């Protein structure tokens, strides 16, 4: 067998793993790898303008397609620039493989030029990571990395490859199987436990399905919809779970938690049976834990045993893959008698809907509702940044399909949405990909405009521009006596800093500014009509707030509803 270089082994391994696109940035310690990628026609490499952009793009690609996202960076600063992106993927259980170059093996530990202990740095923010010390283990390590990333509860895996390993030569033999004695995820749930869930459902009077991102990751949306319809149990979703169940279904309660709907939170609090599927009882969902769902028997279906009873005591746990467990549950389940419960929920829905002031002022909720209405007939993927833009999008955009809502949930990473949109667009060229951003967040990875333009990725960016770091400003308004400490991004006058229209144009993209409510529809239509990246700068009501809101650390029964 002929010997090939380590760099070529990496590329061949990526091809074996069916990787079609990789995102990254070159540097001294990955020149051999970049050279090998350059020679491989089957692998499309997207050059970003910052390694963080590459990591988020790989993440967005993974979220949109369900495939493993791949990002590549050089040693030292290249690798450390991936860190936020890796941590983002880790918190949201997104399958990703990050490959970093490392200084020569003999220099490791010497504080060499562009050396960073990236395996040490990323140990707590990866599902697993590797330093490849010898070319003989390179292919098997990559095999393991992809296996670990995409199986069980998915997550990011980093593989650090010293430059001399990239240059060394060996035969290429890609292993067929992986056998890791310490890693054997449980997919099939315990049948006895699943039968008990069916029993609990049958006996329940006020059940709620509480759905998290795990349902999307396991591809369990169909099974979930069947279960909900067979049993008539209302469905609420975490922010990560949006899209797992159609938001416009009569059984949908929308999102729960800190900025969830009032009816979802009330339903949780009064439920007698809470069925959590692929969700992890995050503090943004539960509010004050000891007041969460006080009367409910808690069922928890999750693939990760460490998620069970971590925050909230679980009465009936089932460890397994959400899709397989729900599928089995469907064979046992019977419809409970919950007509009274539906009456109550209907009353909450009527009395406490999501609402905002309907006047002549340009408000963000109106923009998102209009955007949703105008894109309903299209395959649309929404990404967001983090803050008010994210919460308004979660509340007012109706998601009907899984993998159409890509947002940084666990880590809450500003600057995620735009590069994630680029990754999503690469993976789903047929889709209309829109990043809903704030004027603060968009500036965190604005450099990726060049990536979008040069790669002809027609991503649309909707900026909800209030000249503030709006969510923090909202907290300051409500809890810090309106002291807007360092959250003001503009001088409030007529000049713009930056002028997003000119900025878009300087990259060769289109820029549109909207200041009035009656211009929203035509601007969105125009943007959709342009075959290229477009930035729409919506100058919105500056001090609009996100409501309902559960103040941090309080019970989710105690919602602030605002003035609207």
């Amino acid at each position, binding site marked *: 067998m002929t010997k090939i270089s380590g760099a070529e082994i990496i590329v061949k391994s990526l091809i074996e793993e069916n990787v079609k696109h990789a995102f990254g940035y070159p540097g001294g310690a990955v020149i051999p790898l970049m050279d090998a990628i350059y020679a491989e026609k089957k692998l499309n490499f997207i050059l970003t303008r910052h390694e963080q952009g590459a990591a988020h793009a790989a993440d967005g690609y993974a979220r949109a397609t369900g495939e493993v996202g791949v990002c590549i960076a050089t040693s030292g600063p290249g690798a450390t620039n991936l860190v936020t992106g890796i941590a983002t993927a880790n918190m949201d259980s997104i399958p990703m493989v990050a490959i970093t170059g490392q200084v020569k093996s003999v220099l490791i530990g010497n504080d060499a030029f562009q050396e960073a202990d990236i395996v040490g740095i990323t140990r707590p923010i990866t599902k697993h990571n590797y330093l490849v010390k010898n070319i003989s283990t390179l292919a098997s390590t990559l095999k393991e990395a992809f296996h670990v990333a995409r199986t069980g509860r998915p997550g990011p895996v980093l593989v650090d490859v010293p430059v001399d390993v990239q240059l060394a030569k060996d035969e290429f033999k890609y292993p067929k199987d992986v056998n890791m004695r310490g890693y054997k995820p449980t997919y099939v749930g315990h049948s006895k436990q699943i039968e008990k869930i069916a029993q609990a459902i049958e006996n329940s009077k006020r059940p709620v399905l509480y759905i998290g991102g795990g349902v999307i990751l396991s591809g369990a949306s169909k099974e979930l919809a069947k279960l909900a319809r067979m049993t008539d149990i209302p469905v609420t979703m975490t922010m990560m779970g949006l899209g797992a169940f159609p938001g416009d279904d009569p059984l949908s309660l929308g999102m729960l938690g800190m900025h969830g709907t009032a009816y979802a939170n009330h339903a949780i609090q009064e439920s007698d049976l809470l069925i959590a599927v692929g969700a992890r009882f995050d503090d943004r969902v539960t509010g004050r834990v000891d007041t969460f769902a006080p009367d409910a028997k808690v069922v928890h279906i999750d693939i990760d045993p*460490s998620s069970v009873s971590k925050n909230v005591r679980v009465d009936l746990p089932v460890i397994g893959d959400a899709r397989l467990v729900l599928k089995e549950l469907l064979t046992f389940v019977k419809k409970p008698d919950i007509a009274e419960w539906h009456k109550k929920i209907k009353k909450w829905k009527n009395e406490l809907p999501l609402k905002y002031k309907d006047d002549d002022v340009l408000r963000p909720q109106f923009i998102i509702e209009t955007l949703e209405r105008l894109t309903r007939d299209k395959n649309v993927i929404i990404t967001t940044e983090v803050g008010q833009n994210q919460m308004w999008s979660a509340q007012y955009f109706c998601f009907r399909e899984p993998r159409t809502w890509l947002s940084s949930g666990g880590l809450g990473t500003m600057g995620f949405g735009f590069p994630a949109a680029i990754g999503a667009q690469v993976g789903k060229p047929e889709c209309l990909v829109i990043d809903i951003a704030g004027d603060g967040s968009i500036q965190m990875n604005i450099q990726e405009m060049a990536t979008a333009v040069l790669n002809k990725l027609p991503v649309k960016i909707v900026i909800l521009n209030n000249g503030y770091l709006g969510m923090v400003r909202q907290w300051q308004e409500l809890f810090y006596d309106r002291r807007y400490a360092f959250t003001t991004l503009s001088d409030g006058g007529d000049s713009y800093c930056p002028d997003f229209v000119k900025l878009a144009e300087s990259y060769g993209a289109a820029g549109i500014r909207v200041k009035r409510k009656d211009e929203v529809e035509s601007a969105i239509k125009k943007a959709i009509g342009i075959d290229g990246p477009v930035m729409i700068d919506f100058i919105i009501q500056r001090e609009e707030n996100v409501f309902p809101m559960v103040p941090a650390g309080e019970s989710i029964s105690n919602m602030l509803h605002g003035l609207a």
Partner: protein
Amino acid sequence: MANFILSVLVENKFGVLARVSGLFSARGFNITSLAVGETEDPEISRMTIVVDADERILEQVKKQLHKLIDTIKVLDLTGKETVERELLLVKVNADKTSVREKIIKVADTTGAKIVDIGKKTITIEEAGDEHRIKALIELLKPYGIIEMARTGKVALSSDK
């Protein structure tokens, strides 16, 4: 809070200790002692970890340890029939002949081993369960303990 003994079989690879200790620090779990060494299979190490926790935290510790890819098995030895040993080396002040004799007597009566006698100090070795180690330390304290090293507990389940 109480002490629980976990016996954890892990891959004998570099970085595994860092993964385990990092897990404890990142999640705020308390380690009382941790001892690592090779097992009968050179590819596997055994970590004996004494954890200071309550039942709920212990459950999380076990699950989080198990979640590590390099962890093969997590055994909770708490409340089980086990054999537990810890090794102690203790250097005691012995600059007067009268004191020397007393210390040697302590060692003799407790069954501890004298492993080094210097001009001014005596070093004693003791292997045993926690009770035995503590008892010896208490007996030697009045003479002035100069230095002390403990391995932390190692344990195996008993076959009784």
